[in-house]
Every structure is written in C-alpha cells, then in structure tokens.
C-alpha cells in the first residue's frame, strides 16, 4: 500500500466514523432530554399535579389542573380556527389548484409558516386584546389556530394528492360531480392520514409559548368561560422556570415532563400510523 493510498483510506475511515458520531450525538441529545425530564419531572409528579390549583409561594404542594384545562381550551379554539381553513385550503390546492391564484395561496401559506410565533402573538394582540382591553383564552386560541393553518394546508394537500387519480376517474365515470367525487371518495380515502397530520399539527402548537404570553397571559386560578385570561402548560413552565423558587422549579419540571410526554406520544403514534400507511413523510 502506497503512503498516498494509506492516507486516502485513513481519511475515509476517520471521516465516516466522524459522521456516524454526529448522528449518534444528535440522537443522544434526544435521549438525554427524555432521561433528564423523566428523572427530574417524573419523580416529582403526583396526582395533585393533575387535580389541584397552583399554591402561593412558600406553600408546598399544589398542581396545575387549571393549566391543563387551559391548554385543552386553547387547543379546542385553535382547532376550530386552524382545521377548517387549513383542511379546506388543502382541498383547494389539491383539487382545484393549478391557477395563478393557487400559486399565491401556496406562497402565502409558506410565508405564514415562516412567521415567527411571537409575531403571530403580536397580531392576535393588536387585533383582539387591543380592542377588548383584556387578555383572553379566545385570543390565545386564535393565535395558535393561525399557527396551525400552514401545516394543516400542506399535509391535507399532500395526502389528498396521494389519492390515486383512478379513484377520482371511477367516481366521475359513475356520474358523480366533481365535488361529490371529492367528498365521497377522495377525502374518505385520505381521511386517516389527514387526521393524523392534524394531530401532529396540534401537538406542535400545544407546546407553543411565545404567542400566549401576551394573549392568553396566565392565571393562578380557574379561568371561567372563554373570554378570561387563562393559564396554560407551556406558559406555566416558562414562568415557573424563571422564578427564583425551588418549589416552583420542581413544578416546572413536572409540567415539562407532562407536556413533553404528550407531544412525543402524539408524534410517535402519528408517525407510526403514517409510516404504516405508506406515506413517506409526515
């Protein structure tokens, strides 16, 4: 073996090993996050966390029941805003697309997807909070709903496009109108995948904090109705984590553990479902 060849082979093995290490470290970070949260959050988690309200500084115990309900309410509003617009927008792009207008829609969807979440928060603030002069669940939910739109559009469009053209043809050849074929054949064929895509979308906004800080704000108590400030899991994690109290830090870890479990569970489940159905990407 000449020195040159030896050098080339050595470079080959060294560099290949290094790239493998990069991948391993990236995956290692995930397990580190999981492990650390499990250890720190899981151990301090108890039933009170799910059933009790936060307690004032100095008292121990208490939970984040109001934040869990708050997150649920925010996600409900977000779905009511984001899912219809996103899903129907996806139907438009997949079934009625091809025009200059659909180019514009696609462009604006991409643009919206790139808008930093804090800017969406500003938007909800100027449009809703400035008018009604108080923080509200509604404003937070709408902000999250707007954040859901781009991903809902894209996944709906992608999964509808994956429905074979032969099914559309078969329906139309039986005398179904275009809209009838879409509603009775195309959408049902893609529905599982679309729902899974929307679950992923929900999991993504469930962890969003920035758009909520000055829309849904926070609340140490139950938030009645839909028009009052509400606490939410991510905002609780944030405000407890930056507080100076050890007891609150412990609560922040528990909340982080719950939030991450929720998000990862939905992600793993959805991605497995999509992979089994043969959709390469989520």
């Amino acid at each position, binding site marked *: 073996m000449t020195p040159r060849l030896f050098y080339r082979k050595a470079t*080959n093995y060294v560099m*290949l090993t290094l*790239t*493998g290490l*990069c*991948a391993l470290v*990236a*995956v290692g*970070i*995930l397990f580190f*996050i999981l492990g*650390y949260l499990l250890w*720190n959050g899981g151990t301090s988690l108890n039933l009170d966390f799910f059933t009790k309200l936060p307690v004032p500084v100095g008292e121990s115990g208490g939970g984040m029941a109001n934040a869990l309900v708050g997150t649920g309410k925010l996600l409900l509003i977000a779905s009511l805003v984001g899912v219809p*617009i996103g*899903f*129907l*927008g996806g*139907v*438009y792009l997949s079934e*009625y697309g091809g025009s200059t*207008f*659909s180019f*514009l*829609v696609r462009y*604006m969807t*991409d643009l*919206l997807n790139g*808008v930093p979440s*804090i*800017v969406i928060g*500003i*938007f909800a603030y100027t*449009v809703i909070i400035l008018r009604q002069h108080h923080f509200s669940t509604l404003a937070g939910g709408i902000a999250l709903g*707007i954040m859901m*739109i781009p991903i809902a559009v894209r996944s709906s469009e992608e999964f509808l496009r994956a429905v074979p053209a032969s099914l559309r043809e078969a329906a139309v050849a039986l005398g179904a*109108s*275009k*809209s*009838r074929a*879409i*509603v009775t054949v195309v959408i049902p064929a893609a529905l599982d995948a679309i729902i899974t895509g929307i679950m*992923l979308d929900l*999991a993504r906004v469930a*962890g969003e*904090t*920035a758009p909520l800080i000055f829309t849904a*704000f926070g609340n140490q108590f139950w938030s009645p109705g839909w028009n009052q400030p509400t606490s939410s899991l*991510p905002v609780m*994690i*944030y405000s407890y*984590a930056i507080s100076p109290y050890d007891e609150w*830090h412990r609560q922040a870890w528990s909340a*982080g553990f719950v*939030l*991450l479990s929720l998000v*990862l569970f939905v*992600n*793993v489940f959805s*991605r497995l479902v999509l992979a089994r159905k043969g959709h390469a990407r*989520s």
Partner: protein
Amino acid sequence: METSEISTNRARSPERARRFSDRLASGDTAANLIVFLAAASIVFITSWIVFELYRNSAASRHEFGWSFLTGSSWDPVNEHYGALPFIYGTIVTSALALLMAIPFGVGAAIFLAELAPPRISNALTFLIELLAAVPSVIYGLLGIFVLVPMLKSAEPAIRATLGFLPFFKGPFYGVSLLAAGFVLAVMIVPFIISISREVLLAVPADQREAALALGATKWESTWDIVVPFAGKGIVGSIFLALARSLGETMAVTMVIGNTPQISMSLFAPGYSIAAVIANEFAEASSEMLRSTLIELGMVLFALTFLINGFARILIITTSKKGNAT
C-alpha cells in the same frame, strides 16, 4: 333485445336526473366557493398580519425613522428606543448556533443518507425528527437548569484555552450569548439533518457510482461528488434553520440574560428581538413602547421572510437539478 325493465328505467330517468343534475351542479358551485374562501382567507390572514404590524408600528416609525435600526439606547423613561442591541443579539446568537450546528448537522446527514443501512437510517431519522418536535420551552427549561450550570463549570477550561480571544473576556454568569447560541444550535440541528438528508438522498445514484467506479473511496465520492451536487439544497436547509433560530423566542429568552447591550464577549449577557418582545409586551404601558416592540416584530418578520425565501429558492433549484438528471 332489451328487457322491459331496463327500458322503463331509461324512459323515466332523464327527468329525474335533470332535476338531480341541477342540484349537483349547484353543489359543485357551493363546494367550489367554500374551498376558494378557505384558500382566500389564508392569503387574507397573512396580508392582514403584515398590515397590522405596519399600522401599529406607525408611531415608532415616525418618531425614530431609520435610525431606529442603528440606535443603541433603550431608555423607557425618556421613551427613546434603538433596536441595535436586539438585532446584534439576535444575529450573534444565530450565527453562533449555525457555527456549531452546521458541521454536526451536515455530518449526521451524510451518515444517514450515504452510509447507514436504510433501516438504521430511517430509525435514527425518526428519532431526530422527534427532537424537532420538542417544544422550545422545554429546551429553555433544560437550558436554564442544565446547560447554564454546565457552561459555568466549564468556564475555567474555556478561559484557559480560548481566553486570549476577545470573545471570552469579562465576567461570566452563565446566562449569556454563548448559552443562547448553544441552545439554538441544539434546536436547529434536527432541521439541518432532516432536510439535508433528503437533499442528499435525491442525488442520482449514477453520480456516486461514477465516482466509485473511478476508484474513489466512499468518503471521496461523498465529499467530492455527492455533497457538492446537493450543495445548494444543503445551504437552503441551513438558511431555513437560520430563519427558525432568528424567530426563536422562549429558549433564548430563558438563557440569554435579557440585557440590552452590545458586547464583543460571548460570556456577556445580551438580548434578542424575540426575547424583548416576549418580556416587555405584556407590560408595555406606553403607546410608544408598544409601537416600538411591534416595529421590532416587523423587523423580525422581514428578516425571516427574506431568509426563508432565499432558502426555498435554493432548495427548489437543487431538487430540480436532481430530477432533470
């Protein structure tokens, strides 16, 4: 030849069918309209966001003009605001994050696309994409309680080896530009990996085979042929990651130290555009401060808009090249 049953069916069908077809035709129009409105509302909402940012930042724009971008004082008492410390903090932390994330991300992408057997590659990619789903507030939580103490304990070692550089001078409290850069790096690595991997996988097999057939080693064929072929797409993935890190709010807010100053040292605390909005907006009592924060939001929007657009063009042109070959 025809049975009577069929001919009677046919005889009465046109009338019934015409009524029905009218109804269907109008259903088509309605369906068309509904999905069109949904699509149009996306265009409307996005435009509305831009409009609101522009309208509500009017006071600040009139007061400070372009000097807003270059001013460095942040004086709520006299209502004099400049954005430079925030722009500086945003750019420095993002640049730092890229510096750390690029070698790692591209390296891992090369491993996943070129070397790992498909099963292992898919499993690892699955896990790495999960990393991208972790909410940013969780990264912030780990940043405060894990990364900051870790950096603090590594401080003597950093000073000993790199202390001669101007980037590692001054007191170090843990929360700093360095910590923010670190957290951002961890957050954007999954993006770089998963998009770069896809771009690499799209490189036609004949490119690799041609290089290997000429006697190149696996690494040489990858580094000299495949990576340059996918080059623009990889750069695109880096820009997408950059856009994300510029707009990242929570994790940065929790570890950057929230001090509006411009310091050469990465040990120093700083502030980012998104962080100042997150911290100040809810309590912004004066009209002018709110308007200023909204103008900062507009600056952030413009930055991410430009970088996203650029990234998309790069990725689209590479994938076209791959398809054409």
